[in-house]
């Protein structure tokens, strides 16, 4: 053993550094394998037969014409599902393949396997399904009122959250504003459509390589659908082409496994963009009625809100989205009295579920529109009104929960409001409303400035047992120390692989860290959503590293003849703080060390079913946005000139990655504000392509001004809080407010269309 004086060197690319992504080299070379890039010997292709009706009885399926095509192997229907023909994240209400009823256009009825993808699609088109059409329920208000058909056994109400707190004040000398607002259906529009490869195994099980946000919840559902024990359904995460909530629910996974197990051959499935639009859930469209009451000097007295979310044909995560929309309906403000009713209903529209922001985005447009309306009614500056009512540490939220930890809402707003304003519009038409369509010479343009403040929960809420698991192994290899980190946490683009490696480097003082592929061979990591993975799986990696470190220090203590409590790990050595002596870790690793740890955040409680009161959330995160727009009032075209965003992240584990989340969240928020809407008529998606569903490009995205606060929490690893969702939350509200400021008229629906802007401008 070598015992030497310590060499104090900080580890590179540890916590707090803008470490580069370990997977980016393969990605820039085009060598990173997304699920759509996978292949296998003897592989065949699956395709899906989908319902053309929003609501219909299935009378029969005739696959004979499809099966007569050479190269078509198999057609499966509901009767071929060996286990329970139901899946779903909150309630198992959705059939893997429809039985006697279809409830939305695009619902899967049969699956086909054939030699190549084109043949599989042709065969799917030849599967004849006889339907008897039923009246379709596509209006959520009608679903709520009890009109129209009943779509599920328990009725059409998915959830009603009632929140009641404080006494409504008497009517004297109160300034009251009311408003009705709508948010359209947004698509996650991840760029890599749904795809997977299912490979049957000799043990009658299946190995599934897929894109998902949560391997273990897929495994649970698949095992039940396939009638197999969980250990025979093994999942490995493939390259994931973005997620944003749209990969929480199953899509191709069960269908590919069914075909593969029945055929005894590997099966690949890969959607095109049009199929992807019915292949995953969307953001809930929302209708919101608000009433705010305040004193003449701008103190909020009460908020009433009535919110209706269209959940579509199946539950997915509608109940939790309803919970969030209700909890955050009043926004990040101190309000003595609230009366909030938030409901979600089943309809025959495409199912709605998780998307980045998860209910908080919709209500943010509502509460921020109301704050502007109230400011106007009071003759008060909208920033001042918000500052006067902003929550802070110790404030009580609408659910009665006291805000613990940093809540710098006022500071975030002051920061965006204090940024210098961009210069007035120039003459380059690409930077004016209408952009490359070259539709204005800047004559008559109106400039507007708008603000948005937002709040959302981080991690899972309301009593959910939320945890992550990590296995960390250290070993000596080639005279160097290597740490391997193994979790089931889904890298979906957000950079989890980077932060896991950074945490291991910091905790172990080791530079070489390998992140093993995520799979179900290690314990559950929970979902890559709710802005929770750096906290939870990061916490698990940190805990597993601490266990490994303790064993390394025990070994070092023996070698050095000193107590382990005086030793620490640094730069590949164990160092004594007392004697200054050190021993290289390589020499302690004659046998490797492996530890697995589970990490949980503190418990939360469900909300009271009558009053909606309770400590339901682990933590709140906050963001502030300021948008500056130029508007061409004749054409209604809008150019976003600049967006500023300030966000408290507790601790930026990787500052460049935090900025990346902020840029990306702002872009999705700008999209929802101005252009992104899945248009649904009579249950049918009218624009299932990127020709007609528009997402922001480089020509739409303005310069951004980012401000990252790092006020550490006491209850999270390194003081961090979740980062992914807040930068989206209040971006749409700020853009809409800026347009209103420009045209001087109400705009109560997002996305704000040119028609609405032009009409508002005329009517002002």
């Amino acid at each position: 053993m070598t015992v030497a004086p310590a060499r104090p060197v900080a580890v590179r690319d540890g916590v707090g550094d803008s470490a580069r992504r370990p997977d980016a080299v393969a990605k820039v070379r085009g060598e990173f394998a997304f699920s759509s890039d996978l292949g296998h010997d003897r592989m065949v292709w699956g395709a899906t037969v989908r319902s053309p009706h929003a609501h219909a009885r299935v009378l029969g399926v005739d696959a004979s014409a499809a099966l007569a095509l050479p190269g078509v192997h198999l057609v499966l229907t509901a009767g071929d599902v060996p286990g329970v023909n139901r899946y779903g994240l909150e309630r198992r209400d959705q059939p893997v393949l429809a039985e006697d009823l279809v409830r939305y256009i695009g619902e899967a009825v049969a699956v086909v396997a054939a030699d190549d993808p084109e043949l599989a699609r042709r065969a799917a088109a030849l599967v004849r399904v006889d339907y008897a059409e039923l009246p379709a329920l596509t209006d959520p208000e009608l679903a709520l009122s009890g009109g129209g058909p009943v779509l599920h056994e328990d009725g059409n109400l998915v959830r009603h959250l009632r929140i009641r707190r404080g006494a409504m004040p008497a009517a004297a000398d109160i300034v009251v504003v009311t408003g009705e607002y709508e948010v359209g259906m947004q698509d996650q529009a991840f760029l890599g459509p749904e795809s997977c490869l299912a490979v049957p195994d000799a043990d009658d099980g299946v190995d599934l390589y897929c894109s998902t946000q949560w391997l273990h919840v897929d495994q649970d559902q698949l095992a039940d659908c396939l009638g197999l024990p969980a250990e025979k359904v093994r999942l490995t995460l493939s390259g994931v082409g973005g997620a944003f909530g749209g990969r929480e629910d199953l899509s191709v996974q069960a269908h590919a496994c069914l075909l593969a197990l029945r055929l005894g051959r590997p099966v690949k499935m890969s959607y095109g963009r049009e199929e992807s639009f019915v292949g995953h859930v969307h953001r809930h469209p929302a209708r919101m009625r608000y009433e705010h009451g305040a004193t003449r000097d701008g103190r909020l007295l009460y908020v009433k809100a009535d919110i209706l979310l269209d959940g579509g044909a199946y539950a997915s995560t509608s109940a939790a989205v309803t919970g969030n929309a209700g909890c955050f309906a009043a926004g990040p403000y101190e309000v003595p009295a609230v009366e909030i009713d938030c409901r979600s209903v089943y309809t025959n529209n495409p199912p709605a579920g998780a998307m980045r922001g998860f209910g908080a985005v919709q209500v943010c447009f509502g509460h921020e529109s109301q704050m502007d309306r109230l400011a106007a009614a009071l003759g008060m500056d909208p920033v001042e009104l918000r500052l006067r009512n902003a929550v802070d540490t110790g404030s009580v939220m609408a659910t009665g929960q006291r805000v613990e930890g940093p809540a710098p809402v006022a500071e975030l707003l002051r920061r965006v409001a204090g940024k210098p304003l961009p210069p007035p519009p120039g003459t380059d038409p690409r930077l004016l409303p209408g952009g490359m369509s070259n539709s204005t010479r800047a004559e008559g343009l109106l400039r507007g400035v708008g603000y948005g403040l937002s709040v959302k929960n981080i991690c899972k809420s309301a009593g959910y047992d939320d945890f992550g698991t990590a296995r960390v192994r250290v070993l000596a290899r080639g005279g160097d120390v290597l740490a391997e980190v193994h979790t089931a946490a889904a890298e979906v683009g957000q950079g989890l692989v980077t932060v896991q490696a950074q945490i291991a480097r910091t905790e172990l003082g080791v530079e070489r860290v390998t992140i093993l592929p995520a799979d179900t061979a290690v314990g559950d990591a929970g979902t890559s959503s709710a802005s929770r993975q750096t906290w939870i799986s990061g916490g698990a990696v940190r805990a597993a590293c601490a266990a490994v470190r303790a064993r390394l220090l025990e070994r070092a203590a023996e070698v050095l003849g000193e107590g382990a409590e005086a030793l620490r790990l640094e730069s590949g050595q164990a160092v004594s703080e007392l004697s200054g002596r050190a021993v290289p870790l390589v020499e302690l690793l004659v046998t490797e060390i492996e530890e697995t740890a589970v990490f949980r955040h503190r418990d939360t409680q469900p909300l009271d079913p009558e009053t909606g009161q309770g400590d339901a959330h682990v933590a709140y995160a906050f963001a502030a946005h300021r948008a500056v727009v130029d508007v061409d009032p004749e054409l209604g075209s809008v150019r976003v000139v600049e967006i500023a965003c300030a966000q408290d992240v507790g601790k930026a584990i990787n500052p460049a990655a935090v900025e990346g989340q902020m840029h990306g969240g702002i872009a999705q928020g700008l999209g929802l504000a101005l252009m992104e809407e899945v248009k649904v008529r009579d249950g049918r998606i009218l624009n299932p392509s990127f020709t007609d569903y528009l997402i922001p490009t480089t020509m739409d995205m303005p310069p951004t001004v980012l401000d990252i606060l790092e006020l550490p929490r006491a209850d999270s690893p390194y003081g961090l809080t979740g980062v992914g969702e807040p930068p989206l939350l209040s971006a749409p509200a700020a853009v809409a407010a800026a347009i209103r400021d420009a045209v001087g008229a109400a705009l109560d629906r997002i996305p704000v269309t040119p028609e609405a802007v032009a009409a508002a401008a005329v009517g002002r």
Partner: protein
Amino acid sequence: MQISLMVNGVSVETTVLPHVLLVDMLRDTCGLTGAKVGCGTGQCGTCVVQLGDRSVKGCQVLAVQADGAEVTTVEGVANGELTPLQQALWEEHGVQCGFCTPGMVMALTDLLEHEPAPDEQAIRAGIAGNMCRCTGYGGVLRAVRKVVGGKP
């Protein structure tokens, strides 16, 4: 139909149906899965490859239209080492999920070959047909600015 072309400097002779898209031939016949199919309708730009000396969207070109041509895919742009553009995309966090990245690399390689010193608007116009859903283009634009002007 019988076609012959050069793909990343390698001669390819193959038979394709007349309606097969260039991107599908590259992925399925040549096994080059760097170019992606994100939309299939020419909007997203994940399928961009170089055909002759200009970049094209591989879902908007038939394989037979590449007969006799030289095609370069993202797998063929680097000679061993990363190109300065690829290196900058890595360093400047211009990559998140990475699904758009091959198309970004190809469209920007084309831009920088034909316009070595593009200004901000020319950079943006050069990838106006390449959607990214993760980065909001922040890291991508920083990377290009770094290649062009030495700083992000």
